């Protein structure tokens, strides 16, 4: 039996009764790269939080199972403990001080000092820094990674790729590192930097360090990993050496089939595929964390178009960019008329409505009544629900009677569970809040409805209702719907076509009944189909 640097046995964890990890076993030998693949929400980050003793785990009742480091059972109760056990972490976002040099960052809080007259009097904290030794150490750590960098440069001006290496160098420099965790390390790197990083990882394993590599880039897994674990919905979907699997197999196991395919009638013949209602060309959106780099997409009148992809891939940015909520460029034509970007009022008044993924942030006025939440955009954009003209539209009183009637209709139609239209939205459940958001968008009488993450954070029963409402709007009210969702299952359930966005680009458009492997490959940016 190989000598395991880390064994995680039967790890299980649930948040507030919802299981997120179940019976996960992971074994890492010395000098091995163990890759963990999985969709968002598969449990990767929870697993890492457990390994690092993050407070969030203990605040929510701890976890099941045991962790062994080199055969010894350990209790990892804090990140400090994890570090002292020789577990190092390379973060996705950098934890570096921009105003410090590379050496200073690497050696922070572990400085090498030498005695001086003052320290003889006042003790160790007054000793001066031995920069020569520290620089040598830093240079040594960097060169182990194959980097030639001036260690006295400030972090501030470095390219992001180099910062990543400095992070790694800091972990190596700790000396007694036995296990390094790389969490999506290549997400911010360029092609060649990623290449170099992968080389460095291999180099590290030759020193007997075990590596846990979390990524959604399947080609990188195939390039460097020895063992592969695929997580899906908190359980291990598969675990085998790289040599016994293929990129297609990983992709398909990662996605899996979570929902029975569609009991909803398909009807590709009901709308005209040549009738383009919305034409998006070269859209770029500067939404932090969800940047869209260059997306061109045609939406057909009457369809439900799904937009899927991994978190951070840019799928969320598309709707937010078109609606003017984040800086965008490119051209968007609605029925041949250009939409003015970066002007939220323009798409609204031309007939595009948006149900935001950020329900409590952008979607609702939490301390306002249901009825005012529903009608506010309509009042502002279309001057509806206002009493008779007085000097200017701005000074027209709103029509409380009309608003109440309108709200009551929606409360009934969408089955919003509330004490009345004057109830504060804050007091509603997530599902009912989402219905208010839908009512708000629908009040605008849009031709096109963007819906982002419509079922996030609501319970299963409400999810079905929300999806049913969307299908009903589409079929009976001729509304073209563009639904963005992280849940592939629900996209495949109600959409006519599904566009997959990866790394800010359109990876391709698939039919909802396309095989799992196609979705998996496109989502991880492996396959780009020109459409």
């Amino acid at each position: 039996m190989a000598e395991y640097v880390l064994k995680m046995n039967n790890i299980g964890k649930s948040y507030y009764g919802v299981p997120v990890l179940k019976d996960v076993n992971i074994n890492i030998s010395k000098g091995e790269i163990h890759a963990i693949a999985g969709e968002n929400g598969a449990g990767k980050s929870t697993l890492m939080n457990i390994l690092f003793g993050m407070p969030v785990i203990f605040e929510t009742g701890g976890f099941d199972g045991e962790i062994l480091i080199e055969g010894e059972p350990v209790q990892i109760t804090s990140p400090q403990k994890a570090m002292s056990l020789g577990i190092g972490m390379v973060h996705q976002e950098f934890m570096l001080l921009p105003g410090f040099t590379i050496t200073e960052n690497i050696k922070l809080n572990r400085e090498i000092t030498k005695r001086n007259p003052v320290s003889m009097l006042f003790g160790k904290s007054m000793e001066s820094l031995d920069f020569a030794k520290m620089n040598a150490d830093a240079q040594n750590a960097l060169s182990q990674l194959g980097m030639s960098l001036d260690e006295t440069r400030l972090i501030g001006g470095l390219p992001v790729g180099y910062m990543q290496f400095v992070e790694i160098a800091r972990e190596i420099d700790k000396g007694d590192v036995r296990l390094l965790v790389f969490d999506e390390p290549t997400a911010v790197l360029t092609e060649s930097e990623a290449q170099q990083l992968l080389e460095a990882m291999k180099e590290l394993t030759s020193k007997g360090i075990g590596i846990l590599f979390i990524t959604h880039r399947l080609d990188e897994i195939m390039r460097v990993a020895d063992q592969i674990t695929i997580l899906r919905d908190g359980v291990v979907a598969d675990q085998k050496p790289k040599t016994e699997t293929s990129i297609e197999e990983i992709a398909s196991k990662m996605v899996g089939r979570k929902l029975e395919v569609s009991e909803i009638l398909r009807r590709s013949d009901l709308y005209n595929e040549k009738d383009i209602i919305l034409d998006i060309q070269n859209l770029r959106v500067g939404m932090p964390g969800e940047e869209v780099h260059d997306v061109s997409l045609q939406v057909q009148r009457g369809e439900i178009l799904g937009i899927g992809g991994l978190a951070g891939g840019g799928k969320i940015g598309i709707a937010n960019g078109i609606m003017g909520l984040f800086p965008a460029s490119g051209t968007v034509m609605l029925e041949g008329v250009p939409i003015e970007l970066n002007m939220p009022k323009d798409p609204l008044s031309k007939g595009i409505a948006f149900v935001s993924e950020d329900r409590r942030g952008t979607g609702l006025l939490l301390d306002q009544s249901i009825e005012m939440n529903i009608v506010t955009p309509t009042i502002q954009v279309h001057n509806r629900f206002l009493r008779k003209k007085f000097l200017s539209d701005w000074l027209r009183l709103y029509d409380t009677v009309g608003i109440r009637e309108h709200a009551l209709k929606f409360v009934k139609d969408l089955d919003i569970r509330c004490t009345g239209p004057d109830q504060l939205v804050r007091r509603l459940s997530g599902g009912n809040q989402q219905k208010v958001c839908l009512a708000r968008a629908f009040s605008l009488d849009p031709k096109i409805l963007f819906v982002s993450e419509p079922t996030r954070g609501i319970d299963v029963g409400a999810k079905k209702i929300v999806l049913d409402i969307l299908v009903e709007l589409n079929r009976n009210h001729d509304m073209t719907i563009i639904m963005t969702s992280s849940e592939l299952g629900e996209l495949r359930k109600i959409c006519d076509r599904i566009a997959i966005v990866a790394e800010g680009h359109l990876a391709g458009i698939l039919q909802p009944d396309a095989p799992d492997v196609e979705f998996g490959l496109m989502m991880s940016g492996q396959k780009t189909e020109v459409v």
Partner: protein
Amino acid sequence: MWKNLKDFVLGLGIPRLTIIGFLGFLFAVAFATGLAIPPLIGDSLRRVGMAGIMVLAMLPTVRAGIGLNFGLPLGIVSGLIGALISMQLDFTGFFGFFMAVLLGIPFSVISGIGYAWLLSKVRGQEMMVGTYVGFSSVAFMSIWWLVLPFTHPEMIWAIGGSGLRSQLSLRNHYGQVLNNFLSFEIGGMAVPTGLLLFFALFCVILYYFFRTKAGLAIDATGQNESYAIASGVNTKRMRTIAVVMSNVLGGIGIVAYAQSYGFLQLYTGPMFMAFPAVAAILIGGASLRKASVTNVVVGTLLFQTLLTISLPVTAQVITGDITEIARLIIANGMIVYALTRGSGKGGR
């Protein structure tokens, strides 16, 4: 009936019930020590009318999410310019008063736009910056009061001086015109009907303003800016409108105040006028992000009544002349109290 009353009392909230209790205690002491109560009440009403519109000026900025308008002195000095011009032109009576109000508005609008622009550059620090905008506008205008070309002999320093006096009597112009309008007296209590009606008029205007499209847009901006943007509201313009409204109300407020007081106070007069207004609206139950016309009315009533009756009562109980000290302690103590609970509730 009993239940409605109970709901109403509980709805006032503990801080207001405490103050009402304290007020009751003061009235009891006043009665016990033989002070005449009706003139005290009449005096309180007069002070409510005087201060009311300046408290109302807090409303638009709070509703727009900017917080309390500590820069109220800027609006006040703008309003004073209108009051001075009306005086210079020798307008008297109601005409003089309304001209003072109207002539001040253009100045408040212009300074308000500049103030709004400044506040848009310091998002999140509006109240701190506003305080100093208020102070510096007072200092700045102190120079201009000396050099502006006003020539009316009742306005400039006596015996051939130049520059405006620090206190200008309105007796021969429009002093007391609102107070005397339809005023009457019951059992020693003088009711300044016109002044109260003028305050009520602005309460009604603001109440209805926040039920219009523009008012709704300002509310949405203050409650959730992303929601407002996603609803097609130009939030920057809404904040500008709110600041300008507040500034204009400050200008109108000072004219109403001055006509009742009988004097225009220049130079450092307006320096600390924002603080009683801030205290009043907070005591009325507003927070830094939420306020209503009701908060303004309740707050002004409680604050001004407390100020008015606490002084004679303390003077009665404690020997020696500590009225001025007592006034400072009570007024500023209430501001501290109101601000701590204001930020505690609103500063999420």
